[in-house]
């Protein structure tokens, strides 16, 4: 028998109560782990998607970062003429209304990109990272390339036929980038896209730009903004920053909300431990009467808090992991990112809660007067 063992026994002695206080910590820690893990996952996906999706610079109608507003193809000539621009590639974005109303799909599976295969090759985007089959070619008409996740979702192989906007498309290639947003993408030739969407043949939604010299993206974007009217050029690093700032804010809020949840858990621990100390007044009095010091008692109760925190933390991390798995099942292809650092932080947080929750009860226990405790029946 040792100190830890008696503490362990003490905890096990009141199973229901221990379970409840563990639950408090567990919920708090689960929330932290799940929310931060998801936000980490979104961050890494969202961040590394930007470069490959938009090239060095993306140009859209001014003020339309999240919506799809059409532009006239003529802007392309203007952009092409700007100093420092190497290649450009147009994009037409079609919303797959059927997929949207069908529900249960990932975030980027609602959009289908109309791309120019030749320009795409020059600019070197993910539409050229084909794992099976081939990329789109200039001569292609009703051909489609799809991301590997989307292919898995719809059980598509190279050569499969898919119906889209009343037309039969043949899947000629499957892309795999490792990014869950990218891998749900679909792309078809740009003129076919305009045709099925029924828009004018000179409509585009976005122009992606590759600069001549890496490092000049900002400068070139500024030039585009100054020279070409009614468009907004954003560098991919700017977009990355915007998204990462947004996600940082979410993460901070996540921590704050979870911290509140966990502190409630901590108060729960304090409450249950205080009750158990009061219940054990006589027992603690006996410990002191037979030679335990105030510090020995303090240590025992704090250790109980520590153990509660530890177990609560372990359960919480497990719970958080399960939550993210459930979340990933809902959001296809998504990978939450529970880093070792996050696990460490969550564990530390849980243990700190247990110990802090234990301080007051431990102090109470240490100040029990053995004489009073023994006289009280």
């Amino acid at each position, binding site marked *: 028998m040792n100190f830890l063992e008696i503490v362990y026994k003490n905890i096990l002695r009141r199973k229901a109560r221990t379970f409840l206080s563990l639950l408090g910590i567990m919920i708090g820690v689960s929330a932290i782990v799940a929310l931060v893990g998801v936000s980490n996952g979104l961050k890494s996906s969202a961040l590394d998607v930007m470069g490959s999706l938009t090239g060095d610079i993306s140009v859209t109608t001014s003020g339309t970062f999240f919506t799809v507003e059409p532009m006239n193809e003529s802007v392309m000539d203007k952009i092409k003429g700007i100093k420092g621009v190497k290649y450009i590639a147009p994009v037409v974005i079609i919303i797959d209304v059927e997929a949207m109303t069908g529900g249960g799909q990932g975030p980027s599976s609602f959009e289908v990109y109309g791309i120019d295969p030749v320009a795409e090759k020059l600019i070197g985007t993910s539409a050229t990272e084909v794992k099976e089959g081939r990329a789109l070619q200039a001569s292609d008409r009703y051909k489609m390339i799809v991301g590997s996740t989307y292919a898995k979702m719809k059980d598509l192989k190279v050569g499969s036929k898919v119906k889209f906007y009343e037309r039969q498309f043949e899947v000629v290639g499957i892309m795999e980038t490792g990014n869950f947003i990218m891998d749900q993408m679909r792309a078809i030739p740009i003129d076919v896209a305009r045709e099925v969407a029924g828009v004018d043949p000179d409509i585009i939604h976005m122009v992606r730009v590759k600069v001549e010299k890496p490092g000049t993206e900002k400068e070139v974007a500024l030039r585009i903004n100054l020279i070409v009217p009614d468009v907004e050029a954003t560098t991919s690093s700017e977009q990355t920053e915007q998204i990462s700032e947004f996600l940082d804010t979410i993460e901070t809020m996540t921590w704050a909300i979870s911290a509140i949840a966990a502190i409630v858990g901590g108060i729960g621990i304090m409450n249950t431990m205080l009750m158990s100390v009061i219940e054990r007044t006589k027992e603690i009095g006996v410990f002191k*009467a*037979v030679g335990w010091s105030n510090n020995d008692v303090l240590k025992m109760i704090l250790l109980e808090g520590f153990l509660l925190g530890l177990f609560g933390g372990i359960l919480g991390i497990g719970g958080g992991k399960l939550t993210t798995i459930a979340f990933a099942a809902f959001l296809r292809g998504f990978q939450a990112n529970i880093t070792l650092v996050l696990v460490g932080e969550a564990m530390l947080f849980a243990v700190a809660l247990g110990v802090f929750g234990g301080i007051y009860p431990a102090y109470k226990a240490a100040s029990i007067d053995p*004489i009073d405790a023994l006289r009280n029946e």
Partner: protein
Amino acid sequence: MIELIDLKKYYKIGDIIVKALDGVSIKIEEGEFLSIVGPSGSGKTTLLDQIGALDTPTSGSVIIDGIDIAKIPKSILYMLRREKIGFVFQNHNLIASLTALENVLIPLLPEGINPKKYERALKLLEAVGLKERALHKPSELSAGQKQRVAMARALINNPKIVLADEPTGSVDTKTGQEIMEILKQLNTEFNTTIIIVTHDLEMTRNTERIIFLRDGKIDKETKI
């Protein structure tokens, strides 16, 4: 050696002052076997608590091996309890969730337990006739057995002074006599100072000196 000098312990309850001990002076030599008797409420437990360094007096001195308990802070008194004193409480006060063996080991827990100490605890349980019950919880033991576990616990630290508050109070005469035998043996073999509180005059026959308490004062003293 234990010396009590004009020891007073008063309790104040509202406006009433209860004089639990009202000027007690005794000298107890090392290796003495002493009994304290007196009616209920006469201050026996209070006296034992004072000698056992469980409490500090209102006035007067409790000097144990030259140390005046009244002069040291309550928070340090545990050292005396741990090192010099073995206490058998009026009701055994065993921890219900622990086995007999674990209960015996409780005083040693803060400093850590090694196999040697385990062995000693087992030996003590054997000495009080409970070797077979070492792994039983208090709820599985009879009143007399519990009292004997409490005695083993009091002895685990090799105390120089053993204080027993009505050790035979809740057991039959035969078990009571067995308990007294153990104490007597301890007294003769290790020269341990033993002070028992009892209201059973039969039990006092084993001891060398009887102190009669009444209303917190020494009524009379008899040497046997």
